[in-house]
């Protein structure tokens, strides 16, 4: 049976002429050529430019992004440098001001001290002069009053015996001179 199949197949194959695959159908060739050219024109006019443009856009966007980032970075660095410079400047300024303030303070303190010392000295001198004057006034007043009082007292005690003015004033003067001497010795001791 198998042999029979093969032989009939062989016979069939030679029995009639098959189409030649190399012979073209000119209409098919023409349609393919026209179709190809139409597609080519569409690709040239529409498809390829769009793809190229899309590609170009992307290249620009990426490069633009990189440039932008670089610009931003440079800007940030400039800002940072400026900020650091300002910081250093302000630090220097602050220390300068501090120094000045310190010097000024020291000057103020010394001035105030001098002033206070001078004022103190002046007040002390004034007070001393006042005391001196008071003391002198008091001494003078005492001198006269004590003399008078003592004379009156003595005259009352002694009576008329002492009415002789010359004698009494001699006694009073001697008494006061003694008093002065005593006082001076006391002052020296002090």
């Amino acid at each position: 049976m198998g042999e029979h199949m093969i032989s009939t197949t062989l016979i069939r194959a030679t029995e009639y002429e098959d189409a030649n695959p190399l012979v073209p159908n000119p209409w098919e060739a023409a349609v393919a050529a026209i179709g190809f050219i139409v597609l080519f024109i569409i690709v040239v006019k529409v498809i390829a430019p769009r793809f190229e443009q899309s590609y170009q856009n992307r290249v620009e966007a990426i490069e633009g992004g990189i440039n932008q980032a670089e610009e931003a970075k440079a800007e940030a660095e400039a800002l940072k440098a400026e900020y650091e410079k300002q910081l250093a400047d302000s630090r220097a300024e602050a220390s300068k001001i501090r120094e000045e303030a310190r010097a000024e303070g020291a000057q103020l303190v010394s001035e105030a001290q001098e002033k206070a010392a001078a004022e103190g000295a002046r007040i002390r001198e004034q007070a001393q002069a006042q005391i001196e004057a008071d003391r002198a006034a008091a001494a003078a007043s005492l001198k006269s009053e004590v003399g008078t009082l003592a004379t009156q007292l003595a005259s009352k005690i002694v009576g008329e015996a002492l009415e002789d003015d010359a004698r009494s004033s001699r006694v009073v003067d001697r008494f006061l001179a003694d008093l002065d001497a005593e006082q001076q010795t006391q002052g020296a001791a002090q």
Partner: protein
Amino acid sequence: MRGPALSSLALSAAEEGGFQPPTISETHLPDILPWMAPWGTGFGKNMLMVILAVVLITWLFSFAIRKQALVPSRGQYLAESAYGFVRNTMGRDILGDKHFRPWIPLLFTVFFFVLFNNLFGAIPGLQMPTFSHAGPAYALAGIIWITWIVLGFKLHGAKFMKLMTVPSGVPKPLLLILTPLEFLSNFIIRPLTHSLRLMAVMLAGHIIVMLAGSGAEFLIAQQEGIANAGLGVAVLIGSIPLYFLELIMMVLQAFVFALLTAIYIQGSIEADAH
């Protein structure tokens, strides 16, 4: 005896009890306009598929790139990858940075026109690669052949003929033999091999599909016995890897066809360099 193979296989097998392998004539389907007219007299399926390829390629790529988004969607990314493949692998790598830009559209058109028309052979319902017929293959190879020659003469003038036929650095007596051979090889054989390579591979693939189909049909439906039916099923299962092999061939042939186009054009541009 038999008309140009229009009668069905099943019928003849039933009549004669033998297996009738598919023939070339059976790849020539009757035309669509006028309906069922003999092949070659009207508008046929092959022509319809050419138009379909043009419409599909235009629509797919225009649709994918319609937004020109900087961050592409999946579709745009795929289309851009496909475009970039032709642009960079076939254009820039072969034609060089200096010359490739004006040729991108031609290479793109060649590659995708051939690819889509080939893939029609793997789509159920269409199931016929356009280029399994010699006509379209001749047409396309012819267009590229003319482009190659016109470009060559435009760039190099009449010297192009000499550059293409007289190899340099060959002893004078040998030129007597080599010059006709070079002429034959570059101007006559080149377009023929360019077209027939594509046509033959597509036709062979198509016939394998037909053979597997009709063989399985014959074994299962026309023959008696479980063994034959089992064999028929085995043929069907075996045809699945064949289908994928065919798919690879379709892509590969489109690639080879476009690659050769780029190489021929490069040969024209730099004819004086070798």
